[in-house]
């Protein structure tokens, strides 16, 4: 499963759609390598990358938390 496929599985979740962070059309067009400009999407990408690249959970956690401090 690719990073894009995993990301899509999160973005296609009905709950994500309900939260109204991003339109459905935009969700469909989104690419893992491109910035979405939506913080929630970006932290999901950080978590996916960390997992695929076998990064330690603590490092991914720190990356997410500091990303949201911006």
């Amino acid at each position, binding site marked *: 499963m690719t990073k894009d496929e995993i990301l899509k599985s999160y973005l296609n979740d009905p709950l994500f759609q309900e939260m109204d962070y991003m339109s459905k059309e935009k969700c469909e067009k989104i690419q893992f390598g491109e910035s979405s400009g939506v913080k929630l999407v970006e932290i999901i990408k950080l978590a996916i990358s960390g997992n695929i690249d076998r990064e330690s959970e603590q490092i991914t956690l720190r990356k997410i938390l500091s990303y*949201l401090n911006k």
Partner: protein
Amino acid sequence: MIIEKIELENFLCYSGNVELKFKEGLNVVIGDNGYGKSKLYDAFYWVLYDQTFSSELKRFQYTKETKSNLISDKAKFEVENGRINSRVSITFLNDRNQDCYTLERKYSVNKINGETIESNDSEFIIWKREYLYSKSRIVSDEEEKKRILNNIMPVNIKDYLWFQGEQVESIIDFNNQDTLTKAINVLSNIKRYDEIKEIAINCVKAVNNEYDKEVKRLSKDSDKSESLSSQKEIINRKIETQLDEERELKKNLARAEEKINEILTKIDDASKIRDFQNKKKNAIKNLESLTNELEIEQIGFHRKMFKNKWLLKGTTFLHDSYSKLYDEYVQEKLKSETAEIIKSEHLKELNKKLQSRLPINVPEPIHVKRMLQDEWCYVCDREAKKGSEAFEKIESLLRIPESEDIKNKVRNFDFSLDLKKLYHVSLGLNQWIQNIDDNINETLLKIRDLNLKIRDIRNELEKIEEDIQKIISVTSLNPDEANNILSTYYIQKKYEDDFREKLNNLNQTLELNRQNLSSIEVELASLVTGTIPEYLTAKKQILRDFEAIAINTRERVFDKLIIQLENEANIHYSEMTTGNRSTKGQIKLKRKINGNYMPEIIDSDGNTLLGTNTSNLIMVKLSVIMAIISAKSDSGENYTLITDAPTSVFGEDYTFGFCKTISKVYKQSIVMSKEFYNNQKLRNELLTNHEIKIGKVYTVIPTILESERSNRNNLITQVHALN
């Protein structure tokens, strides 16, 4: 990767050099029991895992345990001095890049003058050929060896690809609820979603801490905030403990439910067996009681001969005779007494007369006798000649006292009272004797009645026993097992109720704690002076959303996977059970209270099918395994299925469906089977049916049959290719 060939040298019953080549599709090795199929399976297993299966010990053994037993007896027998090798090599071909790997395992012994010197371990070598025409080289780097082995057979899926018939049950163990969940985890990407969910949960914990610190820092009443924070911490800890308890309870509840479900199919049969057993017990009790009663009646029958005077039966005539005699006696007696009275009166008269002549006893008898002797009456002094009146008169004086004595004597032998008593007794008995027939009839009827009842109960017992045997043969449950099932059912039902009640109570307490937590949070927020930084509030919200999405997505993906798996499993299940006419139903992967999934068979209305036959249950397991493997194949990963007697645990009519299915699911499969040995029709179908992608088919036949194999020194296993 597919297996190109296996080469054996003096391995177990395969003496000499034997080679079996394989192709893509279904490869079958056919042989009867004891012909060497399992030893071939052992050869595959030995190369990769250095272990062979001991059918005596029912477990795998390493080479260091089996040692020279791995070597063919014929090879050991033929060599007096020198080295004997047992060697198996398997060649794997990566059909994508033409890489070729040969895995070789060897075990050697030395024989010196007939004495065998064993090595402790086997040697393992991997040969690698990178291009089709390049030369093979030995892989010496241990890491590379590990990588190659893992590519050939990943540890986590080995159990689903290499198995023996008897292991099918345990690969997906219906008693162990998380085996299916584990299999899904191993063979899918769901683990990633679990890990991302874990990150999200920890992110929320971290942001909550950060937020709480900020709330405390901005508090107008730091003491109160401190106290509220402590309370919050305590409640959070309580909630965590309670959540642990909840998980544990759910696990226990699911276990109890599972155990109930597991025996639910047998509960009706077990109840029937127990009811029959109870009936049998009662019948035996009744039979014992009636037999005792009959025995008492029979002993009593003999006693009644005396006690109830049955011996007197038919003797009423004796009473009649006696009665007649007694009457006569009474008459006679009366007569005699009357005569006696008359005589007495007469004597009295006579005495009166005698009194006028002489006083009684005067003269004395001695003088009377003298007078009779002298024929002379000395009283009147005159002659009294014998025969004269005077003589007789004198003589009569002697007779008077004598007649009195006789009377007395007669009175001493008077039995009239006894005879009278006897008469009355006889009269009473006569009445009794007249009722003896009725009494005997009554007793005989009772005995007959008891015998009839005993016969009925014996018949009933026979019928019960027949019913018990019938139900035992149908259900394969013996009475002890039936009792165990019932007691387990009641125990587990009690557990289930207890766990459910505890869970309800726990949920109420949890809800209360959560409410308290919210109140504290509201109170803490009310103490804040100034503004919490906007980025922090947003951060908290985003991470909470992340957590919610991570949890939801994981569940959704898992559920989707389950549905896919279920659909796929049903396709395989339907194909595999085509040849069987019993009720099949459909596979449903049912979610348990603890989140695990278990396969069930349901009917078209969605009701769980109880009492499904064992073969179908095993088919369900195989179908789920195949569904998992199919999912894995979809992602481009192909592995060879190697299985020894997979169809031995279910009926022959499933064999063809099974072969058809595995030829679709697995790119390559190697199946050792005996079903095609005896059934020529099935074998022909295997070789000619176009629905099966057939690879190579072999028969293995030993030169000496297992039953005649006391001496294995000449044992050779011959391999013949059928196509």
